[in-house]
């Protein structure tokens, strides 16, 4: 019988038996499901101009690119496959967001109910 997994985002799933976050691309074991998945990823502080390059000349104060003194792109990579799992646009130094904190017990309960319904249906 396969281990029950619930896909939570494009790149993250939770193994309900082991209660662990996993990468959906390479199956890398990321972190405990009851903790912040970001703690198991690699993190980089990017200059926003690396992605959003200035479209107007440097002589202009506003150039279509975010101001790197106001805004940084924090990128979270899977240590296994290098997939960009998530990113955040934050002011320099701003605490990182613990964005997903699901009730794992309820999730397991829901899955068990769904399995029960599926089994009953044959």
């Amino acid at each position, binding site marked *: 019988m396969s281990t029950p997994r619930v896909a939570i985002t494009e790149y993250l799933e939770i193994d309900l038996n082991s209660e662990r976050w996993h990468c959906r691309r390479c199956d890398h074991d990321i972190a405990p499901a009851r903790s912040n998945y970001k703690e198991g990823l690699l993190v980089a502080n990017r200059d926003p101009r690396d992605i959003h390059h200035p479209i107007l000349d440097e002589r202009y104060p506003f150039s279509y690119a975010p101001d790197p003194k106001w805004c940084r792109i924090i990128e979270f990579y899977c240590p296994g496959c290098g997939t960009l799992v*998530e990113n955040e646009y934050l002011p320099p*130094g*701003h605490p*990182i967001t613990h964005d997903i*904190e699901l009730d794992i017990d309820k999730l397991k309960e829901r899955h068990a109910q769904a399995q029960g319904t599926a089994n009953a249906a044959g």
Partner: protein
Amino acid sequence: MGGDQEKSIIEKFLEENVLFLGPDQQIMEDHSVVKTTPREQRALDSFTDTDQINLVRHKLQTACNESFDMVEQMGAAPGAKWGDLISGVWTANGDLALASMGGVLIFSVLTQHPVKFILKYWKDDPTVGLKDGDIFMHNDARYGNIHNTDQSLVIPVFHEGELICFTGAIVHEGENGAIEPGGMPSAAESPFDEGLKMSPIKVGENYEFKRDILTFLQNSVREPKLQLEGMKSKFFAAMRMKARVEEAIAEYGVDAVVATMRKTLTDTEAEVRRRLSAWPDGKVRSNVFADGTLRENCLIRIRCELDKRGDELIIDFRGSSPEFLNRPNNTVLASLKGMLAQEFLSFVWPDLPRNQAVFAPMTVLTDRRSALHCSPDAPNAQSMMTFFPGFTAIQIAVPKYLYSSSHRATDIIAGWYNMIVTFLYGGINQYGELVGNVCADLNGMGGAARWNRDGEHSLAPIFAPMADIGEQELIEEEVPLIKIVPHRLMKDAEGFGKFRGGHGYQQIATMKDSSMWGFMCCSIGSKFPTTYGIFGGYAPGTLPLCKVKGVNVFEVMKDQRELLRFTIPEIMNERPFPNAKYSTHHMGLQLEFAQPGELYMITQGGGGGYGDVLERDPALVSKDYLDELISMRSVLNVYRVVLDEKTGAVDAAATEAARQAEREARKQRGKPYHEFVKTWETAEPPREPPFYGSWKDRTLLYRGTPEDTCPADAIRSVMMPNPKDLRIAQLEAELEAALAAK
């Protein structure tokens, strides 16, 4: 006389001698549906055929749609023409039971407040009253509205002396006599700068407007004829809907109409709860940063925590920025709720009826006197500058519930573009009339990427499922505002991702044939993006206001057509007009008078991206490159695709190698989380840029500097200095230094 008796007399005296009926907090902070009344229960007991109820519901829904079309076709205000309105039917208790399917759905959960005010205060007041033939209006957002540029009109519908319901419409009318023309003054520094302030008011009796009040209202705005026309179109729409309700009563009986309105509300709330139950339980959080007040740049935190439990959703914005007492970017709580409901009505469950019950299972938590729950003392004409970011905060959070939900009515979607990048205008038109209003270009917001496809370009505003952007030729017939080139999509302005966001278009405007004409803009997001991608997808970039002053392009291009450029980057980087002054700014422009032929240029924003850029199909990257949506720089440095510059042919092997190299580079530059946090996170916000809102602890709010704080439950409102005073002080200091150096 005993103490209790004395107290009772004083309380009675105070109750009977209220000196001012301001916004009623109990009405304004309660978005729940009134419980079923005994009258409604009798109707439900006597009219139980669900098929018949369905027929009556369709009849009322069709009436709402019909009256919506009437206002859209008859209305003279630009907002009416492009669908910035709804029409609806409210129960005898004031709840909005059904509304038109199109239009601005924010109104769906905030039009009940003025109706409930009428019922609570005017119905039994001998000096006002509520009777057949009465016409009520309002526009003050503090009594329930998006902002004061919108005007509502409702009429009661009686049957054999019994109040059955209200019908009416609410429309973005535009001009309202504020400190700046056009109805949305970003220069407002107090509620008294925001123009017309109609608390719910009886403007007519016996189905006729009272001429004295009409004249007063016309004298209060810059476009008196528009004021009359707007009132008439809303009134006729309300009358048509009233006739349809009366037809339904005649055909099915009065209990059928009462039961249908009640059952529609009850069923809608039950269905929303059923759908919420399909989401996983738990918390999802997001942070959005507004980068200005429209007068100055600063960072305004919108902190959002969603907590879904069973069939209820708690939306917690506590810890967000304090209110700004002399800036108009504050939101009345009810307006915020209206915008949040938009997420569910347009993007999550668009198949549900448009009514107030859609939002009933949600609880919204805010700090009083925060920018998202401002006091009546704070101006709110530009509430969009905080409630749009509030909307985006939940729009990028909800997919984290929806992805694993057992029920979905729509696709998983990233952040839609969320700012009204358009020109407001005011002045004398080519017919010598004083006018002031807004261009419909704001409706061309770029669509967000979905889990399975790219976002559409310049598709629709976040606050309406369908709205027009107007015909430029028709606009030029009415006002002297000229677009010198057709709208073109902005290259590289998308939210990059596995699926990319849609692009927005460039607007290059000028004026001619006017003795006095001014432009305004009201968007944020010039330093910090306002919307975001999801699941690794990037935000769209930031957007400036660009100007070319000191030139009349009509004159210089008369004999030099070669000076014509078609895009903002070409004009700004190539500077084709000699001796002109080229400049960029944030997009908060207060009324600035222009000379003929001077250029004002802005760009509608794009949508957020979905997923990792390295997973984007190289063939889609090639197509976007050939369509000039992205530059070779983005092809190479963002998507890591190797293709032929001329033909767009993809080198698959080289692309795979480039992408693998980037994956390895990510692993090299990425640090383990805890190691990263040690060097990244600071205990408090920086001195520059000025930061407003909580940092680590949501109960402590910063007010622009690390030293200036207040508790979240006892907010001290922020007063901002005048940017011109700061500029003068800076110039004086420079002058003083220069003189001292001599």
